[in-house]
């Protein structure tokens, strides 16, 4: 156990030897900036003033030569090897509403949503609650390093965490989850993390945009909306994008929620219709950001927008946010890249 002290104040917290400085700070309730938690985004950079740390993930994409020169490290990857003094600016936005914890999850059920999206349901050894839209770190036996996946369910007691996960071609973690891990086996879970959670106090209709693996958090947000008394009367639009008809999913889960078709509006869309069978897909075609722009135009400024999907989609949605002058405070997503 190491003691981590922040410069310029009386703030300090303890960090277990196998934990990282960011995660230990969040477990202590501190508003340490971060996003991805897996070394990719660089938002958790801090300056090491005194002490010794080592990165868990030696090839963290966000870690640069400049960081090395300036004695900066990534909070999400830094294991302390001694007591440390660090410099970082805490920002309220990152304050955890539920403190993340390490726990174990026993795989109880596997469901198929599409040819490459599967739901893995875990029962936790120690219940931990989360807010709809948040994510967790999964440590899969035999796979080096933790992976971040968003929960797709909602919970009142924190006993169950479900993840809808898209198989990555040649991916080590999804390969192990899809092909090796069996019902009854146990994996390591750590969470909840992330700021792209449902804002029940936001007095606006909701727009959820999802592509591929972005399904899971947007389904959780939709379920949270349906269960929320505060959001009664607010409409929710869910645009789900895939390349082809076989990628489209989500409707059976949304159909179970209150107001489907009247207050909850599901708009599936494909971006690559089959040129040989143009009539095979009767629905919308195009990218989710274009569909959202065409469907709502300037009304997007009056919506609370949640989105999750591959990097190209996130960038396109952010361009839409700028172009339509949507207040950034109404836009919620995890900066995983």
């Amino acid at each position, binding site marked *: 156990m190491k003691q981590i002290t922040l410069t310029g104040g009386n703030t300090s917290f303890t960090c277990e030897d196998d934990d990282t400085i960011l995660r230990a700070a969040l477990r202590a309730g501190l508003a340490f*900036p971060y*996003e991805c938690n897996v070394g990719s*985004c*660089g*938002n958790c*950079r801090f300056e090491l003033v005194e002490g010794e740390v080592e990165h868990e993930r030696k090839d963290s994409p966000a870690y640069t030569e*400049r960081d090395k020169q300036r004695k900066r490290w990534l909070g999400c990857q830094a294991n302390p090897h001694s007591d440390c003094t660090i410099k970082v*600016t805490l*920002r309220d936005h*990152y304050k955890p509403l539920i403190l993340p914890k390490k726990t174990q999850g026993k795989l109880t059920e596997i469901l198929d949503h599409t040819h490459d999206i599967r739901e893995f349901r875990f029962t936790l050894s120690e219940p931990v609650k989360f807010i709809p839209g948040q994510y967790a770190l999964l440590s899969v036996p035999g796979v080096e390093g933790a992976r971040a996946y968003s929960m797709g369910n909602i919970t009142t007691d924190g006993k169950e965490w479900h993840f809808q996960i898209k198989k990555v071609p040649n991916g080590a973690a999804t390969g192990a989850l899809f092909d090796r891990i069996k019902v009854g086996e146990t994996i390591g879970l750590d969470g909840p993390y992330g700021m792209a959670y449902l804002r029940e106090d936001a007095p606006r209709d909701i727009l959820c945009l999802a592509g591929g693996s972005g399904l899971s958090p947007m389904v959780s947000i939709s379920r949270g909306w349906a269960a929320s008394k505060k959001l009664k009367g607010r409409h929710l639009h869910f645009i789900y994008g895939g390349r082809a008809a076989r990628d489209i999913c989500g409707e059976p889960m949304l159909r179970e929620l209150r107001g489907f078709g009247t207050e909850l509006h599901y708009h599936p869309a494909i971006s690559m219709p089959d040129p040989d069978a143009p009539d095979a897909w009767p629905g919308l075609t195009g990218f989710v950001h274009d569909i959202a722009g065409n469907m709502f135009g300037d009304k997007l400024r009056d919506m609370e927008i949640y989105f999750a999907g591959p990097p190209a989609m996130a*960038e396109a949605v*952010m*361009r839409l*946010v*700028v172009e339509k002058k949507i207040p*950034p405070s109404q836009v919620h997503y995890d*900066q995983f890249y």
Partner: protein
Amino acid sequence: MSERIELCKTSDVDEGTAIKVETGDLALAVFNLNGAFYVIDDLCTHGPGSLSEGPICGDVVECDFHNGSFNIKTGEVVDPPCMIPVKTYVTKVENDSVFIEV
């Protein structure tokens, strides 16, 4: 009616540098470019970077978190990954003090 807020003395900010000033709910970066003063939000629009700590080149400040950059005078994005312009403030200098109008 706009409100005037005094941020600092002109002598607090050396030429070609910036300081961070917190007042009320605002966290601001005050720049001195060739003796003229400019004020923008200190928080980068992309991540948790502090723009007052970024290197300045001409009219441009680079966020040292992700190397995105902004025009200090207009707030416009110069380099990605930043996409959203940073807020600028109407800035006045009177009796060696830097003010903004909000």
